[in-house]
């Protein structure tokens, strides 16, 4: 299952709830203000790194770039993808859950 999160983890509880309720075979895509969840050295980085043990995490590049961030700002092993990659993720995964 593909889970998207579009909220900043510092402002809202969407990422926290997503991490609590995802199945092990799931992937997470961070979009819009959700991309801040991919930043290293923040108050939520540890919980994201912990989730990476079982969950593949992606971040939407255009939203990352808009916010002045790039791969060097991120936790390791988070994959940056474009909208084409976003579409492909929704196809590879049979189901989609959007945490707003």
């Amino acid at each position, binding site marked *: *299952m593909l889970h998207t999160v579009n909220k900043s983890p510092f402002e809202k*509880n969407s990422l926290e709830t997503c991490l609590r309720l995802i*199945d092990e075979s799931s992937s997470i895509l961070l979009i819009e203000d959700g991309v801040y969840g991919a930043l290293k050295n923040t108050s939520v980085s540890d919980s994201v790194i912990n989730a990476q043990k079982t969950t593949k995490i992606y971040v939407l590049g255009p939203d990352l770039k808009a916010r002045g961030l790039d791969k060097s700002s991120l936790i390791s092993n988070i994959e940056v993808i474009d909208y084409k990659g976003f579409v492909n993720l929704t196809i590879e995964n049979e*189901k989609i*859950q*959007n945490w707003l």
Partner: protein
Amino acid sequence: MEEELESGVVKKFLYINRRAPHGTVYAHEALEVVLIGAAFEQDVSLAFIDDGVFQLKKDQDTSEINTKNFSKIFSALEMYDVEKLYVEKESLELRGLTEDDLSVDVKVIDSAEMKKLITDSEVIFNF
């Protein structure tokens, strides 16, 4: 609408409710989707997570803020054959609520069971 009924496709629909009532319209307008959706004879479940559990709080009375008290609709859901209401235990506890505070019969499940409910669904609505 008839077209769908005839198509005979039955999918597992899950409505995830994560917002408090009244502060925003999402809870109310989500319920309108559930009611309309009931006519389509899909397999419907409702999940209440995070502040969504507040939607089910008993004794809501919106008379002093002049908005619609849509919380009464929850008790009518049974008539529409919408009977599977799941509430996450952890969400209740963090908010100091128990099952007794709720206006309708629900099944209280833990996060592990909620995880399974989400995974087993086919079409998920979030408002």
